[in-house]
């Protein structure tokens, strides 16, 4: 039943897409405005924008924090930089302004400063941390109260995941030293998973689909791998055993580049998977505003629900994959080689 409905709605949307190219062409001048919200959602922002109804903007102004050597820490509200009428950034305040790409600039180009603002993603980060803390510490309380009994409440929700990460990710990929790295893998799994899931909530920020976030996570794995690399691991990188010495000139640079491509792949994979999912969902929603038709509205809504279900899966898979690859990289660094 559901599949049939899905097929029909997909066909309908494809049909409408082909038939109404003319409509699309005619409404092109307004296209930028109608789909601009997609990139606006995907990217970070200095304010948290929920909805615009007519001329009323439902937003949460966020603190703007700037550090500079000469002026120290400065705190402003993002609404200080907005025009009160149009609600657009661009107003100069105390020597700073936020440009149309939502980026903070100093009026004096030569000034150096760091933008430490609580942006939408930082606020989201705090929410994700709070949720993870709440979930995990609720479970901890349960374990402390009832150490040898069956898990109850949140603990019974957390426990299968903890066991999965420990038994299916850490143990087989890291080997006998898995105990040292299981807490790291669990933290990374829960952070990414909860971040992915909360990112799917309407109005939430695209935290785990932000390249700064995925880069930081990948760098954590990079350090976890290389700071724990044993003699065999480094020997493998610097002087790969069993390779004739003329080839080493080729192999060693490749191995050294490989040290960096591994976390790079982690960074890009998570960023792309989550961002792409958000773009697909928002594009289907955007179709409704581009076509301004009820039929497309119905079809798009069905597709959005369907993609959202897939995204729930992707959220979990990406958290798993990031954890799995982290475990494999760490495993390769701490493994004892006996065969060389």
């Amino acid at each position, binding site marked *: 039943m559901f599949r049939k409905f899905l097929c029909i709605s997909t066909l309908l949307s494809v049909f409408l897409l082909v038939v109404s190219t003319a409509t699309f062409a005619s409404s092109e001048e307004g296209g930028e405005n109608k789909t601009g919200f997609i*990139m606006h959602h*995907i*990217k*970070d*922002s200095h304010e948290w924008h929920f909805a615009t109804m007519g001329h009323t903007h439902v937003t949460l102004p966020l603190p703007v*924090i700037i550090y500079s050597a000469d002026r120290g820490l400065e705190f402003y509200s993002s609404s200080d930089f907005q025009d009160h009428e149009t609600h657009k950034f661009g107003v100069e305040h105390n020597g700073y302004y936020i440009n149309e*790409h*939502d*980026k903070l600039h100093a009026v004096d180009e030569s000034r150096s400063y*760091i*933008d*430490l*603002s*609580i*942006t939408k*993603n*930082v606020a989201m*980060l*705090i929410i994700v*941390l709070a949720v*993870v*803390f709440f979930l*995990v*510490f609720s*479970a*901890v309380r349960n*374990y*402390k109260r009832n*150490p*040898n009994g069956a898990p109850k409440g949140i603990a019974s929700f*957390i*426990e299968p995941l*903890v*066991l999965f990460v*420990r038994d299916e990710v850490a143990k087989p990929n890291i080997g006998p030293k898995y*105990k040292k790295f*299981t*807490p*790291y893998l*669990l*933290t990374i799994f*829960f*952070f990414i998973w909860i971040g992915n899931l909360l990112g799917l909530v309407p109005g939430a920020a695209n935290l785990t689909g*932000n*390249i*700064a*976030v995925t*880069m*930081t*996570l990948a760098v*954590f794995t990079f350090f976890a791998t290389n700071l724990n690399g044993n003699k065999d691991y480094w020997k493998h990188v610097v002087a790969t055993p069993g390779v004739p010495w003329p080839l080493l000139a080729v192999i060693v640079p490749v191995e050294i580049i490989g040290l960096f491509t591994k976390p790079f792949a982690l960074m890009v994979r998570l960023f792309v998977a989550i*961002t792409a999912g958000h773009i697909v969902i928002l594009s289907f929603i955007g179709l409704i505003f581009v076509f301004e038709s009820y039929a497309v509205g119905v079809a798009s809504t069905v597709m959005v629900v369907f993609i959202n279900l897939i995204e729930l899966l992707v959220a979990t898979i990406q958290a798993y994959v990031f954890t799995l690859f982290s475990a494999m990289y760490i495993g390769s660094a701490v493994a004892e080689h006996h065969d060389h």
Partner: protein
Amino acid sequence: MDLIIPGSGLIIWQIIGFGILLIILGKFAWKPILSALEERESAIEGALKAAENARNEMANLKAENEKLLQEARLERDQILKTANETSAKLIEQAKEEASTAGAKMIEDAKAVIETEKKAALTEVKNQVASLALDVTEKLLRKKLDTEKEQKELVEEFVKDLKLN
């Protein structure tokens, strides 16, 4: 803000936030959870092992009981067999004794009968002899009252002697 250029502010906040998460969860959450899980797993494993041991012990006990029962049965059979044999022997012996005793008694009885018979016969003989003597005496007294009759008798004896 740009899509693929990481923002420095977010990187700093992310390092701080994730670092705090990593340290606090690692110290106060994952350690107790993982140790509780391990403890529970070992407890369950121990309980399973104990159950297995108990089952094995039970099986052993049962086998031992069976063995004891078997032995007892064998012993009972043995005892019954010997008892049967003994009783058969006893019966045989008793029968034999009885038959020998019987035979002896018969023998004795026969002997007694014989002796009694002989004694009776002797008695009878004696009786007969005395009777004969009495008869003879009476006859003789009657017959030899007269001289003539004495003479006749002597003559008859003589005649008989001659004949012999």
